[in-house]
């Protein structure tokens, strides 16, 4: 694989660049002179590219269009506030330990971009490669895991199998008693995996894209996609018509709504996915632990909150809230695996609407309409892919041809049957 083109670095010679000198200068001014991180832009009449969706993936797409492909006349339309959808609702886990070659290429592309992204964006993303441990609770799961680890390593990605004693040494609060209903039989660790500050990812990309001249337009909801014949011409929004010859849709759970505006069909079901945080406690866990079998994953934020992820509700919804039995089910598993959390209180729970795909793999694709592109279907695990997703989607939009990484994720796979079944590697069943 050739070296990744990371593009022109943002804010290179800008007065807005964050640095020790800037910190000192602003300290002398009583910190009253910091400039806004991005402009609150109003829509212009026309753009070369319009990105619908101001989450991490959409902002990353705009950033790489500007930094790698030199396309600067871009608007990112966000119906709410940037990063207010699933970018701000996930459990911030980053890893690239997928089974199939196609997925390995995509997620590892993303992980390589994560490594050094804070420098690229001149923004502290609090990227922490604290490791991601995935547990196995049965003989069958151990065998399946060994197979997956072999596949991952053959793709040049780090992963190692751990036995229960090694897991106990890594995660002292875990209960490895073999008498548990779902005993810890082993697990596998990706040391390069970890977490990042999710809001900072949206803000960092927004600030860097804005520095390249990208207009970030918030409170701008798209109401229709206009076209002439089979070529898009622009979008109708609550802030008026915006002309564009290329439109990238990156709207997660609402992708189906956008597709319907263009008369397209997507193989997506929108479902609520929930997470919660506990009250802050002293540091007890310095890695990420996932368990597919009992449906929970846990890490600890820098503020001390335990961050726990649950499963999806079984039925379609756009309500941005999930049901309590899903939370209860996940907490049962948490208390069994980590008995010390039994009396820790839940601080808050929330839900986001995710776009689940039949094969648990994303869609990065052209459509039958010229100039209309979709990046969606990331389902329950899109955050980890944010930089890679934006990077390959920008490439697709700029060149109108998918590169080797994006090509297998085209919509046509649902007709050809070349599905990329990653239900085993997705953290959450759907």
């Amino acid at each position, binding site marked *: 694989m050739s070296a990744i083109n990371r593009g022109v670095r943002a804010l290179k010679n800008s007065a807005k660049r964050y640095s020790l000198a800037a910190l000192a200068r602003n300290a002398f001014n009583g910190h009253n002179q910091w400039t806004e991180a991005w402009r609150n832009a109003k829509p212009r009449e026309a753009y070369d590219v319009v990105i619908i969706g101001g989450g991490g993936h959409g902002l990353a797409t705009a950033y790489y269009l500007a930094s790698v492909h030199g396309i600067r006349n871009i608007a990112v339309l966000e119906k709410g506030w940037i990063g207010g959808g699933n970018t701000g609702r996930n459990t911030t886990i980053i890893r690239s330990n997928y089974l199939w070659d196609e997925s390995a290429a995509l997620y590892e592309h993303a992980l390589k971009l994560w490594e050094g992204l804070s420098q690229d964006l001149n923004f502290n993303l609090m990227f922490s490669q604290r490791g991601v441990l995935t547990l196995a609770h049965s003989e069958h799961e151990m065998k399946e895991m060994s197979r997956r680890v072999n596949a991952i390593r053959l793709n040049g990605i780090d992963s190692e199998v751990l036995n229960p004693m090694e897991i106990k040494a890594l995660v002292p609060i875990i209960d490895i008693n073999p008498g548990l209903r779902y005993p810890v039989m082993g697990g596998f660790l990706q040391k390069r995996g970890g977490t990042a500050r999710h809001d900072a990812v949206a803000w960092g990309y927004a600030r860097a894209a804005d520095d390249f001249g990208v207009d970030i337009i918030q409170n701008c909801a798209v109401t229709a996609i206009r076209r002439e014949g089979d070529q898009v011409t622009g979008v109708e929004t609550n802030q008026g018509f915006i002309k564009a010859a290329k439109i990238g849709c990156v709207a997660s759970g609402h992708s189906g709504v956008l597709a319907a505006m263009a008369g397209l069909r*997507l193989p997506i079901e929108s479902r609520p996915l929930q997470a919660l945080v506990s009250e802050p406690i002293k540091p007890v866990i310095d890695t990420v632990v996932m368990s597919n079998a009992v449906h929970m994953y846990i890490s600890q934020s820098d503020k001390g909150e335990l961050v726990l992820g649950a499963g999806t509700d079984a039925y379609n919804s756009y*309500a941005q809230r999930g049901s309590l039995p899903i939370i209860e089910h996940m907490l049962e598993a948490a208390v069994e695996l980590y008995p010390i959390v039994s009396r820790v209180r839940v601080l808050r729970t929330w839900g986001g609407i995710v776009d689940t795909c*039949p094969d648990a793999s994303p869609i990065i694709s052209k459509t039958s309409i010229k100039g209309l592109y979709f990046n969606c279907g990331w389902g329950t695990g899109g955050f980890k892919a944010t930089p890679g997703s934006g990077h390959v989607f920008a490439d697709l939009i700029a060149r109108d041809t998918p590169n080797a990484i994006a090509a297998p994720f085209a919509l046509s796979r649902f007709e050809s049957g070349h599905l990329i079944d990653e239900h085993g590697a997705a953290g959450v069943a759907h």
Partner: protein
Amino acid sequence: MLLIDCPWCGPRDDSEFQYGGEAHKRRPPAPDQVSDAVWADYLFHNQNPKGLYLERWRHSAGCRRWFNIARDTVSHAVLEVYPADALPSNAAARAVYEQNWRRENEAAANAAAVAETTEIGA
């Protein structure tokens, strides 16, 4: 959490039920003779509306019977519960049924079948 009024057992929590996705989907009668696009429509391209949705549910921890409901995917309000082999009687739900692009596909498939029968007859 939904409260679903099972036609046979009465109102129960959604955790007693199994979700069956889009209702009124018809399997192409001869899968080996339809195009990949039609087969993909049947397998993967479900309606995913933001609003009223006609969907199948099964009372898997109760009477184990399938039935349909018309539910709003934003408010989660259930407008109507009706038998699996019937159409909704609620006007809004009926409109959702009729506006589904599958009805056009079905009409086209029926027309093709009629044409073929006529050809064989001739």
